[in-house]
């Protein structure tokens, strides 16, 4: 068995396991009850699944120029997936789409000011929930 055959089999294993991760995420997104649970399921193919598929692709192509572009795709995916997930999670939490009976710990609730509460750390450095309700900082860049 030559080296090329072994590498092709490794590539096939990587491709199939990446596709299996996608399938698991699809089932999870359909079956899980909550926005955050669905996000937990959906991030598997976005990072590990895509990386496994790219490893399989790189093992099949085996040229330096293609490898550069594959690495670029992987870096983009690793850099952008957490940012998008963070924004989705924050929007879900702020709009109250989080089912609190499913949470074990809600550490963010201890730092969130109550409605009409004037605690000293609310100096406009962070866009808070109460200020957004009043429409004061709706178009701020740090929102």
């Amino acid at each position, binding site marked *: 068995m030559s080296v090329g055959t072994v590498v092709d089999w490794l590539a096939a294993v990587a491709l199939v396991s990446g596709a299996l991760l996608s399938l698991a995420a699809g089932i999870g997104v359909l079956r899980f009850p909550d926005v955050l649970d669905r996000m937990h399921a959906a991030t598997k*193919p*976005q990072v590990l699944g895509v990386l496994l598929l790219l490893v399989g692709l790189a093992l099949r192509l085996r040229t330096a120029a293609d490898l550069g572009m*594959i690495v670029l795709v992987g870096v983009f995916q690793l850099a952008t997936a957490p940012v*998008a997930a963070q924004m989705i999670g924050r929007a879900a939490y702020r709009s109250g789409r989080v089912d609190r009976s499913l949470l074990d710990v809600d550490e963010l609730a201890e730092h969130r000011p109550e409605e009409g509460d004037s605690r000293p750390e609310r100096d406009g450095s962070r866009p808070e929930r109460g200020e957004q309700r009043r429409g004061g900082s709706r178009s701020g860049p740090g929102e």
Partner: protein
Amino acid sequence: MTVVLAIVLTVLLSTTALLALARIYRGPSLLDRVIAADLLLAAMLGAVGAEAAVNRHATTLPVLVVLSLLGFVGSVALVRFAAREES
């Protein structure tokens, strides 16, 4: 081996796309739909990459770069729109 690999990958990735489409159809809120659209785009990314790997050509690699950036821009824009709508 190539034919079997192509069939297995097609079945797995298209099942994922169908499940994501079902969640886009059913999803109660906009955020569920954004998550499912992200998953659909990840499945498309995987499908384009798998096709290039099975047929051993590199012509669709720029498409992969564009897709990986497009998902980010689309989901961030939709989530900002959703957050503005809620407040």
